[in-house]
């Protein structure tokens, strides 16, 4: 019921203003093509032709061209929000089908309606630029904050192996295989050049962070598996950017010399390290700025978001990896800035970030659905089928081989066979591939076929793999995310053991991950925290935080019963992730639980 209402709403928004206007053949590049509307007056009670004078005042006048862009965008966002609510009320459906699939379906339906009614050109076309500059960064920042986790740090090496080596191997196996297939005639009479195959495999090989996030978050698998897949999807951006650009440039070049290839390899390092450096610098700057914001707390969320976004843009300016830059910046911010900002700012950042990223995610999937419906498809069954098979098969092979090496060489916590399977199966493609395909120059041979193939691959992975991965996880009995139980004994021991292992590593002369942790932790505490934080956090802030949480929980249980203590877990636990809980915060928590009057606004202004 809600779905039908939502579809009706969006159709009304789009179709109504355009009734009576002839189909506009606009330029693909312009955002919204409504040139002719400006010339037609849509007045009430007046049938004047364009150009003639008005003879009376009008009670109301339709000013579509004045509001069109923000109107459509906001309409879109509202529809996305309504849909999100609607999906979670359809109990059975939302547990079986992931939200992303439903959004794509809806996008396709609306796109179909628009296309059929001829109003398609009026709607904003999926601009790769819009995607990369506006829709992707909020999601990446949100992910960066969630990556600030010990489990991710412990598995960072393995993640890098997947992200860099895995993606490279995927690219250079799928492409050449497709080319080989075309040579021996298994792709019908398709004639495609080697480089074009490589361009295609460059853009299709990379696992997509938005799709993976959408699916894996709902799965609830154990932390290690989650961070492995998710981390890989985030960090493979550098490889994708470099290889894609390289291949696209090579297609245009007459002769590809060895130096060009070497430059390509070098550019990989430049792109990724450049991104890291920019993120580092801007993250540290944010920390230093927030050191002085005690009296201007309002500025804090602003600074955090704008610096992170700026790091993305600045990296993109120099053609570095914006994703890596914003992730690095977000990680630094999560590490150092959190101690400098107030509780309120922390809440703001947390929820505003979630809101932004959730909205962008929904908009991305809807846009994807919408832009699938057009008449420039070039369907080549052989190419599509083989692409699907090769992407799927090669991903599994690469995951298994790389994991085998990681397990035997380095890892203590081995990755099980079932987890490897889910990792291979969870290699979803999504909007990033789509945007890269859309950016292909029209003059590139087989451009439309590549686009169609990309879309088909994306849809197959998101729908088929996205829907079936949940039952598979249950079937393979994958270890799920465990309940977090607050225990100070465990936390203390964990810390003690960290130090013990670092010491033993030192004595044996074998410097492993514990040593690195110890080393970095020491210099972090000694220098970085003093420079970047107003009140440097304790050596083991985490230990103190756990203790604070436990103590407060007892406190509230004592005050108002165990129900309040349970609620506290949700509300107050945020407070203790900061340095310490002060009176201001305690009052806020009590106010939330309905115990006391909320602190008045006047007091806050003085802070």
């Amino acid at each position, binding site marked *: 019921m809600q779905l039908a209402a939502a579809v009706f709403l969006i159709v009304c928004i789009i179709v109504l203003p355009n009734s009576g206007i002839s189909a506009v053949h606009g330029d693909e590049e312009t955002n919204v093509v409504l040139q002719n509307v400006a010339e037609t007056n849509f007045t009430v009670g007046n049938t004047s032709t364009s150009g003639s004078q008005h003879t009376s005042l009008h009670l109301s006048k339709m000013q579509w061209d004045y509001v069109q862009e923000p109107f459509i965008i906001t309409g879109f966002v509202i529809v996305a929000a309504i849909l999100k609510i609607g999906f979670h009320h359809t109990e059975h459906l939302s547990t079986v089908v992931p939200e992303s699939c439903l959004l794509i379906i809806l996008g396709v339906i609306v796109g179909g309606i628009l296309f059929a009614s001829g109003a398609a050109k009026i709607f904003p076309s999926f601009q790769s630029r819009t995607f990369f500059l506006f829709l992707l960064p909020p999601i990446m920042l949100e992910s960066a904050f969630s990556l600030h986790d010990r489990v991710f740090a412990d598995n960072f090496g393995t993640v890098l192996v997947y992200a860099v080596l895995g993606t490279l191997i995927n690219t250079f196996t799928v492409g050449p295989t497709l080319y080989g297939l075309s040579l021996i005639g298994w792709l019908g009479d398709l004639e495609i050049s080697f480089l074009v195959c490589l361009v295609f495999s460059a853009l299709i090989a990379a696992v997509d962070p938005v799709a993976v996030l959408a699916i894996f978050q709902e799965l609830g698998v154990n932390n290690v598996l989650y961070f492995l897949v998710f981390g890989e999807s985030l960090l493979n951006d550098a490889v994708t950017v470099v290889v894609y650009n390289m291949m696209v440039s090579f297609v245009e070049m007459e002769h590809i010399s060895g130096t060009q290839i070497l430059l390509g390899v070098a550019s990989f390092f430049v792109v990724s390290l450049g991104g890291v450096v920019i993120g580092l610098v801007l993250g540290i700057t944010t920390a230093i700025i927030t050191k002085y914001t005690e009296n201007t707390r309002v500025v804090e969320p602003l600074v955090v978001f704008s610096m992170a976004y700026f790091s993305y843009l600045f990296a993109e300016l120099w053609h570095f990896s914006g994703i890596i830059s914003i992730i690095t910046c977000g990680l630094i911010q999560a590490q150092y800035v959190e101690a400098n900002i107030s509780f309120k700012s922390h809440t703001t950042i947390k929820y505003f970030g979630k809101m932004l990223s959730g909205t962008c995610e929904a908009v991305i999937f809807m846009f994807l659905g919408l832009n699938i419906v057009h008449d420039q498809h070039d369907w080549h069954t052989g190419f599509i089928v083989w692409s699907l098979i090769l992407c799927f098969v090669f991903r599994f092979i690469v995951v298994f081989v790389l994991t085998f090496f990681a397990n035997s060489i*380095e890892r*203590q*916590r081995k990755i099980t066979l079932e987890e490897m399977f889910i990792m291979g199966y969870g290699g979803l493609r999504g909007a990033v591939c789509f945007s890269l395909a859309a950016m292909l120059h029209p003059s590139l041979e087989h451009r439309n076929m590549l686009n169609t193939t990309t879309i088909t691959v994306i849809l197959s992975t998101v729908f088929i793999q996205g829907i079936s991965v949940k039952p598979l996880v249950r079937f393979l009995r994958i270890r799920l995310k465990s309940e977090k*139980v607050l*225990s*100070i*004994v*465990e936390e*203390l*021991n*964990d*810390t*003690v*053991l960290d*130090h*013990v*292992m*670092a*010491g*033993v*590593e*030192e*004595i*044996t*002369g*074998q410097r*492993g991950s514990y*040593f690195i942790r*110890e*080393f970095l932790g*020491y210099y972090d505490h000694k220098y970085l925290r003093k420079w970047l934080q107003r009140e440097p956090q*304790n*050596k*083991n802030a985490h*230990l*103190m935080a756990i*203790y604070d949480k*436990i*103590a407060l929980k007892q406190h509230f249980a004592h005050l108002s019963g165990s129900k309040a203590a349970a609620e506290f877990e949700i509300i107050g636990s945020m407070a203790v992730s900061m340095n310490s809980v002060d009176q201001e915060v305690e009052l806020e928590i009590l106010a939330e639980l309905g115990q006391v009057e909320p602190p008045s606004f006047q007091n806050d202004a003085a802070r």
Partner: protein
Amino acid sequence: MGNKSSLMLQEEEVAAILDETGFSAAQIVRLYSRFTSLDKGDNGVLCREDFLRIPELAINPLGDRIVHAFFQESQDDTVNFRQFMRVLARFRPLSKVKDNKLNSKHEKLKFAFRMYDLDEDNKINRSELLAVLHMMVGTNISEEQLGSIADRTITEADTDGDSMISFEEFCKAVDRLDVDQKMSIRFLN
């Protein structure tokens, strides 16, 4: 590996250590060269100063206690290679195939327990816990707060109500931490 080392490490000794600890011959040789590089006095045994000379051990808050754990078995204040290896054997990854007396979950946990229990009475009392907390948390925390944390820790772990944590209570409390995985080093060949 100079002439000295190969002279001092006999075949039989290697075989004996191999049997006792489960290390491979190559690992034993490698660790022997580390042993000799630490042995500045050049007398075939290590004393406390030799350990404490390791620079990074100085930044480790538990450095002293870890070193002390190596001297547990020896009568005089020195550690020979055999004893050195016996202690390190505890940190080998647990193998499901070969059971080893020195390398078991029990032994690993005992090593961890010794980090707290300085007076070796097989129980961790409040003051020992406070000492460890001091080292972990640093100097900004007040005595009172540390005291509450110590009390809280004991309450959580103490099942028999004697206000001290015995080894069994300790093992039970850290059961969920996957100690075997955490306290394992992959020794290079």
